[in-house]
């Protein structure tokens, strides 16, 4: 079974919530990223989203875009990302997802992408600009290889569209509780709770909330009605501020541990 699906199931069985951390590939270096992944697992992170840097990340705010630019300046490629994940698989079973933009995966080749992901041990994709109807072939290839495709649903997504998204998402549903991009402030409240209740009435797939989750309090509050939270900008920002520190992986892990409810 897919590592992500398995992990989400296990958490649900124990009544625990998922905490998913986003970091950028090769940022500030591959050595740091690989040991950060191991450290994050140690402090209880449930899965890692690894950002695939793209030149035009329209769904990301300035913090993540700047990190992507630094990674690109280092010459990171998708192929290299697959290779590095393949290597780290000898040391960890932590679910790893790739988050990026469709053009890079399309250019790499749909089939090659899924095959390489499968053999490297990538558990799923989050493709910010690939809605469920845009490329049925890719979604089918992923299903055939038991690779998850995590789709986003937004605050204003109408119910008929929610159903289409739910049918194509796997692993979990990435719920964006407000209009906005990564790095914005969170406005959690009753509206979010109602939306989650609506989605729950339509599916058993776990629901994780991302975009705008910045503090332990946010995570705690959202965890009351969702199955987990995703934190990205805060972590990427922290790592950048601490760059150059020899114990960056440990520092990052301690920082993330503080965010986990």
């Amino acid at each position, binding site marked *: 079974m897919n590592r992500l699906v398995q992990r989400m199931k296990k958490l649900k069985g124990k009544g625990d919530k998922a905490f998913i951390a986003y970091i950028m590939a090769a940022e500030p270096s591959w050595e740091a990223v690989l040991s950060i992944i191991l450290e994050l697992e140690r402090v209880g992170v449930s899965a890692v989203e690894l950002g695939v840097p793209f*030149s035009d*990340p329209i769904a990301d705010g300035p913090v993540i*875009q700047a990190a992507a630019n630094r990674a690109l300046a280092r010459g990171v490629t998708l192929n290299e990302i697959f290779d590095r994940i393949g290597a780290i698989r000898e040391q960890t079973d932590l679910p790893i997802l790739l988050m990026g933009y*469709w*053009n890079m995966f399309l*250019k790499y080749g749909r089939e090659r992408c899924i095959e390489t992901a499968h053999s490297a041990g990538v558990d799923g994709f989050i493709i*910010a600009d690939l809605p469920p109807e845009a490329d*049925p072939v890719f979604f089918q290839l992923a299903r055939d290889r038991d690779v998850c495709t995590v789709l986003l649903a937004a605050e204003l997504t109408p119910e008929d*569209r929610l159903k289409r998204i739910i049918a194509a998402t796997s692993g979990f549903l990435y719920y964006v509780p407000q*209009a906005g991009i990564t790095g914005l402030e969170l406005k959690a409240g009753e509206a979010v709770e109602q939306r989650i209740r609506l989605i729950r009435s339509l599916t058993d797939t776990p629901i994780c909330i991302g975009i705008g989750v910045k503090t332990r309090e946010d995570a705690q509050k959202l965890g009351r009605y969702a199955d987990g939270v995703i934190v990205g900008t805060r972590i990427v920002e922290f790592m950048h501020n601490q760059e150059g520190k020899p114990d960056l992986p440990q520092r990052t892990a301690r920082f993330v541990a503080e965010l986990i409810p």
Partner: protein
Amino acid sequence: MKAQAEKQIPGYFGDFGGQYVPEMIMPALQQLESEYASARRDPGFQEQYESYLKEYDGRPTPLTFAARLTEAWGGAKVYLKREDLNHTGAHKINNTVGQILLARRMGKVRIIAETGAGQHGVATATVAALFGMECVVYMGEEDMERQSLNVFRMGLLAAEVVPVESGSRTLKDAINEAFRDWVANLRNTYYIFGSTVGPHPYPTIVRDFQRVIGREAKQQILAKEGRLPDLCIACVNGGSNAIGLFHEFLNDPEVGLVGVEAAGDGIDTPRHAATLTLGTRGVFHGSHMYLLQDDDGQVHPTHSISAGLDYPGVGPEHCHLKDSGRARYGCATDREAVAAFQELARLEGILPALESAHALAQAKKEAARMGRDGIIIVNLSGRGDKDCRQVSRYLESHGQNSAESTRGPDGAESPGAGGGV
């Protein structure tokens, strides 16, 4: 595909187009699509649009016979579709008038836009002022420097110009920022896209509001010549002025359609924006299109002397017209464009926008190949006042001043690397 069949307006042009956007934008695109589908059927809306074109924009624009240019080039008769005579000085306002009426119809109170050369930004700020709506324009820092006059104009029109410092600091990055703003402000904000790019339904909406160019040109050439032209030529980046001219002639097979991209320093160098000539298929800003990108799918930086042609993608309908063979696409270098800019000024008393000068450079080659009974319509998409500083700098750095330049190396047969078509 099922999803396509459900659409009220087709979302693809052959293989190209579509809606590759973050889910947060999707509800806004769906609302826009259904509102536009109803506006398109509403005679009241169309009447209102046409009335603004006439009373505010100053349409119809003339189709001017360029007698001295025709004589100098020694071939086909050259007509200029005078989009430079629109209010604000370019074709862009045809579209912004239409879209702001759509925004009002949808009850939006805030307008955002991206701009490259500044012409679309000015055209958006203008109609926002006309209707008393808040307006924010995103513009790359490099473009702001190249087009400082337009930045000043937008300020006078009470628009806020937000400098974009990310990426290559040009049009593509301004679009990224406008998308981010839109995602965060969907409820009250309308995004006026400036060209026939972006996710469906923008390529269709912008084209429909630019079709007036070709509709008028067709009537005008029939009145003057009693027949259709042999060629229509227009510059292409996103492609809105070109598709606006071409669309009316798509079903007239005797009319050749030629789009001209920016070859910058030459297509044998890395500094160009010749997307249809050298690009490969990709997905960018919501659409499947030809794209200048590297082997990993990262979008290439582009170069053109003209800020309005400096975009690495191209409208999906042009991609389809290229693949179907209905239109052909070439490119002109910075050097060829500047020479055409000077030549039109000297021979016809018209300063063309540097964008439109690319179309003229191509027209010169085409005219010379055609007989004297041939007819060419060139879309003079905008006026060149905004480009004077840029041209003057170019001439200085190439050891010319404007008085002697047309006799210089740029004048006669230019060997430039801009390929023929």
